[in-house]
């Protein structure tokens, strides 16, 4: 009897230890494989029993429309996209991390995000300019003659949709298909080259191409000309940006426009976007350009288009979407008229001063 009790107690201890060890193993596995990261992609591709809905929604206690649980949209997004807590894309620190998601193959850990960050870039440098959030401002380039006094209070959701718009499952970066209230018959589709090779998003882009959708692949501003970005974007990025910066795809205004500088209302001229940079002749000046760059270009992966025409510069060739740590000195912060410092300086440019200019126009 005593032996039987001892055996039973010993058996219970063993079981307890096993349960304890098993529990520890499960916790360890959970932390290792999932941790506080999401078990499912929260923006789409939900399985039969998704946990991801609860990341953002409360069905009975929501504090905002669309049953959003957080009253401030930006902080809700930051709850995952800051510090690698739920996503690899830390948009506040401007860094691709490897602690948020289970698959970290779409960027190089600890490299800057292609779009930069709102507070820092690569978690080290404080941003010198960023898209200002939660503040009513007039976007530069707003056609104030057509839309006087237009202001926008940016939130993450102003640019990004939490879930893909129907009909546009591969929209780049979940960008809104109709940003800033553009007309329904004028969708701003932004194509990109991956990371999928197929429409069902199951086959990844060829690893041999080292496809890096999110980070500045090998980007090093101190070694220009030696490294390139992944060919990430397809077509449509510039058209998307001009949903707010409405005039910036117009090479020459048809009517005067006050840009807020000292020159007042005048017809303004602009650098072309959505243009190839090789085998190009400027129809205005007659100058021939045959440039190259290591800045990110939009790449139209269409064999039907001549090779020289497939790569085009666009807005994000020069600008980061979220924020930059580029530093401006000298003339880069001076007004050309008064030669005093301008209030806004780095304007989300990718590189210090006007490094983005020199990166293409190397022979000047």
């Amino acid at each position, binding site marked *: 009897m005593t032996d039987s009790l001892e055996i039973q107690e010993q058996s219970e201890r063993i079981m307890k230890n096993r349960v304890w060890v098993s529990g520890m193993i499960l916790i360890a596995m959970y932390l290792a494989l999932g941790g506080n990261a999401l078990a499912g992609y929260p923006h789409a591709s939900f399985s039969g029993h998704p946990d991801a809905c609860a990341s953002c929604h409360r069905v009975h206690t929501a504090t905002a429309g669309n049953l959003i649980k957080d009253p401030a949209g930006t902080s809700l997004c930051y709850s995952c996209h800051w510090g690698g807590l739920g996503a690899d894309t830390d948009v506040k620190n401007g860094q691709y991390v490897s602690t948020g998601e289970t698959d970290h193959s779409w960027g190089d850990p600890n490299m800057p995000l292609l779009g930069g960050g709102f507070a820092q870039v690569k978690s*080290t*440098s*404080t941003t010198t300019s960023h898209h200002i959030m939660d503040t009513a401002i007039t976007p*530069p*380039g707003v056609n104030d003659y057509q839309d006087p006094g237009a202001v926008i209070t940016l939130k993450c959701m102003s640019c990004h949709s939490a879930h893909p718009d129907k009909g546009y499952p591969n929209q780049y970066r979940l960008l809104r298909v109709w940003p800033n209230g553009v007309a329904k018959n004028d969708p701003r589709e932004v194509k990109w080259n991956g990371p999928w090779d197929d429409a069902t998003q199951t086959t990844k882009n060829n690893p041999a191409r080292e496809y890096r959708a999110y980070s500045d692949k090998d980007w090093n*501003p*101190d070694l*220009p000309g030696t490294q390139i970005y992944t060919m990430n974007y397809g077509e449509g990025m510039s058209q998307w940006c001009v949903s707010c*910066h409405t*005039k*910036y795809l117009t090479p020459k205004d048809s009517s005067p426009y006050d*840009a807020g*500088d000292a*020159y007042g209302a*005048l*017809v*303004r*001229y*602009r*650098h072309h976007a959505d243009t190839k940079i090789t085998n190009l002749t400027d129809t*205005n*000046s007659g100058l021939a350009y045959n440039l190259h760059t290591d800045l990110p270009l939009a790449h139209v992966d269409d064999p039907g288009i001549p090779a020289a025409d497939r790569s085009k510069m666009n807005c994000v060739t*020069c600008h980061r979407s979220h924020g930059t740590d580029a*530093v*401006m*000195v*000298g*003339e*880069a*912060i*001076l007004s*050309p*008229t008064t*030669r005093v410092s301008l209030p806004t300086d780095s304007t989300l440019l990718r*590189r*210090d*001063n*006007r*490094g983005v*200019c*020199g*990166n293409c*126009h190397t*022979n*000047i």
Partner: protein
Amino acid sequence: MNVLRRLSRFTHFSGKVVKPMKTKLLGTTVITLVVFLCLSGSAWAAYPHGLFGATPDACAACHRMHTATSNNLIADPNGSSMCDSCHRGGTGADTDVGTGTYVTNGEPGHAWGANGGTLLGGGFVTVNGATATSMHVMNTALTPPGSTTGATIKLRCIDCHSPHPDKSYPNQYRLLRLNPNNVAAARPVAWNGPWTDATQTAYQSDGYRGYTETDFVSGTAGTQYYTHNYKTGIENWCIACHSKYMTRGGQFGTDVYNTGDKYDSDPAAVNGRFRHGVGVPLKSGNPDQANQITYDLTTDLPLEDVNGSMTRDYTTDLLTCTSCHRSHGTNATMSGEAVLENRGTVLPAGVDSMLLRQNDRVMCVNCHNM
């Protein structure tokens, strides 16, 4: 630039350090500011017309990508004022073309001219502190003297100067346009420096002054010289507008034209107009076409140093337009016969000194020491 960036970033970064670092932080900040002011200040961090590094600030001095007010994405709607923003007052360039002075608060280095020295081309408003008595008139439609076609030109800075060197002519003198007045063939103008090599890294030694009149003293011919600055091409460049001024002899009856003086209808002028030779040496070998006189002259006016010897050689150095004329403006004063057109008619104000370098006709006797 990288040093500056690293320093400033270090300052940003060190702004987060704990209290014992405050002294170091303050020191670093002060050093950063001093370095910034010394290297940048109001001056260029990079040459604005070329030689851009990987992260140039200079593009922004003239260009705006989204709000430009004129073609080529120029920020300023008036070409000349765009240039003036740096080239007047020494706020961005050492060459103050308004006062015709070389100043040393515009650019780093300041090695290409004497501080306060008079620019070789003079100034549009003043020269040597005196009001300019003639200048290339800007922003006004005029027919250039000596024009073959009589067409008017509304001069702006960029009619003569290109903001950026042509790729095929990286050393074009003063960034002069290769095709001024839309001429078909390029008009290269070679000069001696200030570089001694094609990559523009080695500089002429010992006081090479590409921009100023260092030793020039009016009227003391033969003792003091301009820097041997020009080499070839000046006169060919100028006649892109003043197209007749290299045609020397009316003796051949090929150059009968009206200049606006009283001889326009004079039957005695049937042989046309005669002109002083340019592109000619001052000593031997090039007799006057009309009189077959061989000259043996000297001068302290600037000549073209064709062989790049950097020494005076009157058999090879050539007289050129800018030997006698300033390019921008002059303060030379004219008196007596120098302002009278053929004894009686006083020339209109502003066109009497004809951008000549020296008072009256001192240039004449500077060579022709009669």
